[in-house]
């Protein structure tokens, strides 16, 4: 039986290569929205924080998890909204 860590590392390796391929050809015009959109995705930590915040244990892990949910949610909500606001402004020249 192959241990789970190996699978996770495998996923990591493949995703990094995929990430390079995905981003490589983005035009300079979109660098800021790309960055803030990626930034919003990095708020994915909220998913890990949720289970820690819901243990009902009233211990330090629980508090840390709850704080992490709050902070990551700022990152997610703020990041997506601000990216959308920016992208709504990008217009092509009407002919």
């Amino acid at each position, binding site marked *: 039986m192959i241990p789970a860590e190996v699978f996770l590392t495998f996923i990591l390796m493949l995703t990094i290569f995929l990430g390079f391929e995905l981003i490589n050809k983005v035009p300079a015009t979109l660098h800021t929205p790309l960055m803030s959109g990626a930034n919003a995705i990095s708020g994915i*930590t909220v998913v890990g924080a949720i*289970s820690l915040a819901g243990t009902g244990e009233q211990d330090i892990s629980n508090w840390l998890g709850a704080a992490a949910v709050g902070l990551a949610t700022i990152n997610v909500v703020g990041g997506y909204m601000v990216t959308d606001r920016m992208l709504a402004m990008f217009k092509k020249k009407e002919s």
Partner: protein
Amino acid sequence: MDNVIQFSYVIAAALFIFGLKQLGSPATARRGNMISAVAMLIAIVAALLDQGIVEYQWIAIGFLVGAIIGGLAARLVQMTSMPEMVALFNGFGGMASLLVGWAALAPGSATFTLVTIILSILIGGVTFTGSMIAYGKLSERIGSGAVLFSGQQVVNSLIVLGILGGAVMFCLQPENINWLYLVVALSLVFGVMAVIPIGGADMPVVISLLNSYSGLAACAAGFAVNNNILIVAGALVGASGIILTQIMCKAMNRSLANVLFSGFGSGKTDTTAVEGEIKPITADDAYYILEAASNVAIIPGYGMAVAQAQHVVKELAELLEKNGAEVNFGIHPVAGRMPGHMNVLLAEADVPYDQLLEMDDINPRMENVDVAIVIGANDVVNPAARENEGSPIYGMPVINVDKARTVFVLKRSMASGFAGIENPLFYKDNTRMLFGDAKESISSLVREFS
């Protein structure tokens, strides 16, 4: 139920990838961002289905507080303040990863888990304080210059050694919580130390690098709590940040190490011998030259953002076009304080994105340009980068405005640019200086036209 959650994560991962792909083209970017947001929603809902959750009240409070703060900030922020906003959000993401790593610590964890906990604390902590310092510098709450002191390298080396030592001890004795506290504290200090020696003009590199770190921190947290969607999404962000960092470094012709450790533009004396004299011009005279021009290039820089001049710039461009001139914008990759900063500002002012030319597209056309208008840009149009081997920015690709027939430089005063480098452009025969606030100067040009 567990299978449902895991397969939802697979769907979310696919949507993240698809969303990022769509973010790569202006026509589909907005949809791409939406798809990525849907992916996030799916992942969050799936996480809420976890059987281990017995109490939802803290989760709900976290969501509520975070959504209100994030939503308000995103709605209220001015486009010119976008770099510091991105830095701030980034920092919160980093802190969240630190907390998750910390909270994942449970008695009897395997060494592999302990290592990933340390990694998420280290990267998350550096991201948090680093982003806060970047925020401070960008919003000018703290001085935006490079902070250097003697023995800085020694102090930094000691901090790194302390982190390494603390990390090893933590993995050997996870029951002694003090090692964990040591690593948390030193990581936070290290984030500060890593960003203070970097000057404001290098901020595009720092922001993209911190962006990459926040992804890697999420990735490490994913290992710590054994969650593959964190790993996939985190790695995607990490990779994209690294690519942006590379692009920025290349645009400055400097290595990443040089940006991070050199404290550029501080203490270096520039020996450029500049010949010629400064030739000021009034808005009146500038108007007559512009009226006769049939090909105009506008090169904006950070000064346009500071003066909030993007709307009047757009007005001027429209008037010039009505007057029969071809108007293009030339955007240097590191103009402004973050990657693509100028593009966002001009998009806000309704300038269509196909009118914005990248450096490599505008440079070959420069010889046909009648008037190049430089608005609050300095180092990115400095011909010393081409001509003077002794210049600190020698070799950096710049927009060759000096090849245009006439150059107008809009500038507040004769103070040198952010990097503190003398700019021979100002002394060239075909250069005219239009002194004053950029917004004021352009407004008076607009008034002359109408």
